[in-house]
């Protein structure tokens, strides 16, 4: 597990820290019906790593947002609503770009991606619906995500 965390974070110190946290959490969690302990542990580790990455990025954004909002407010009155409106507009455009990119996905990949992500079907059901193997579905979804990443990169 430590080897995985080092590989996943690229940082042996952080990996040790995460392993500690993972260990604490699993030890504290009352034993429950967990079907596959190993997969569960790895997925929990993945979530911890992702949370840290997201937190780091969010912190940067939040620090900026906070100083932005300071300029706006005097004793509860919003002085200039412009920056907030602008933020919302940018966020809306981000969402619109995401939806547009999803609409432009190649056909097979797009169908598998939409069935799984928009309609919430598990891989196996998407496979049955499209008449392909589960691994085929995973391939399609992976292609779709690589496409989306490129489309949203700029």
């Amino acid at each position, binding site marked *: 597990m430590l080897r995985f965390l080092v590989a*996943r974070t690229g940082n042996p110190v952080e990996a040790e820290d995460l392993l500690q946290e993972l260990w604490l*959490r699993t030890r504290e969690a009352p034993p429950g019906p967990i079907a596959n302990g190993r997969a569960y542990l*790895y997925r929990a580790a993945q979530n911890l790593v992702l949370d840290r990455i997201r937190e780091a990025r969010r912190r940067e954004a939040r620090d900026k947002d906070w100083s932005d909002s300071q300029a706006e407010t005097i004793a509860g009155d919003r002085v200039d609503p412009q920056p907030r409106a602008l933020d919302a507009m940018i966020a809306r455009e981000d969402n619109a770009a995401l939806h547009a990119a999803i609409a432009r996905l190649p056909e097979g990949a797009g169908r598998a991606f939409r069935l799984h992500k*928009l309609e919430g079907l598990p891989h196996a059901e998407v496979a049955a619906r499209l008449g392909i193997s589960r691994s085929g579905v995973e391939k399609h979804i992976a292609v779709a*995500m690589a496409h989306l990443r490129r489309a949203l990169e700029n």
Partner: protein
Amino acid sequence: MNEDIHEAAARWHVAQQHDDMKWCGFTCWLEADPRHRLAYDEIALLDARIDAALPGPAVRGGTSEMPMRGFPRWAVGSGIAAAATIALALGIGFQGEQPEAPAAREFASAARTTRTVQLAHGVTASLGAGSRLSEPEAGGPMRLRGSAFFNIRHDPARSVVVEVDGYRIRDVGTRFAVNSANGVLSLSVEEGTVALQLPGQTSETLVAAGQEAIAQAGRVTLRPARVANIASWRSGRFVYDQTPLALVAADIARYTGQPVSVSGPAAQRPFSGVLAPGDRQAMVSTLTQLTGLHAESDGQTVRLVDRTGG
């Protein structure tokens, strides 16, 4: 960066939800080239962003209401409160029952949404789903029901007092989160120091940055809090670290807008784990899997019970 790397990263990412994921193979792939890890980070973040942007995709039959990471709706009124002290009173279970306060500005967040509001004196409050906050225009006590994260600008001329079900929280310029339900109070401090006074007591317990105070039944315990996890609902997830199940159940109930309760000794049991927002059934099912508790429904309320008899 090479497109094949991102596709490979996405394949690993997609495969991990199955129990037959080759974790050793994934580790080797990550180790083979440092670019693999960066590509994987990008894909995982993109996936999280997609899940946040698409209405309720992961939950079948779930409603397509606003996702949790909605934009804060900035509700700003015009009352200038003159009082130097702001008091917040957090009432447990006074649903539908208006406090007899004079004219006040009311802020409420619906189920499945969070909301950030700017209040007087440089106070910003982010309300968790299904929570309510009222700020009297005259500057009297504020009332909060549910959970909220407060960001209070430092001002040496005043201190902010939060009254929570008889608890008093006093601070000068800080960031902290409060969650209260079923007689249990959690207070996590991200920055600065706040003083917590228990009902009927005169002494204060100091809670410093990076600490969480859990108060129930006239007792308070302090423990370290991971700053990254404070009011984690703001980022679309409920992260718990040794949190009493009473608060976890209340979070689910407020988020989904449907009653969830846990009673008896199980209510005090600490829970650690991560809950993704979803419909009540999905969230309760994750919780029961992680805790070993059983969910019983009478058609209205879902009750979490310990069938092992302790």
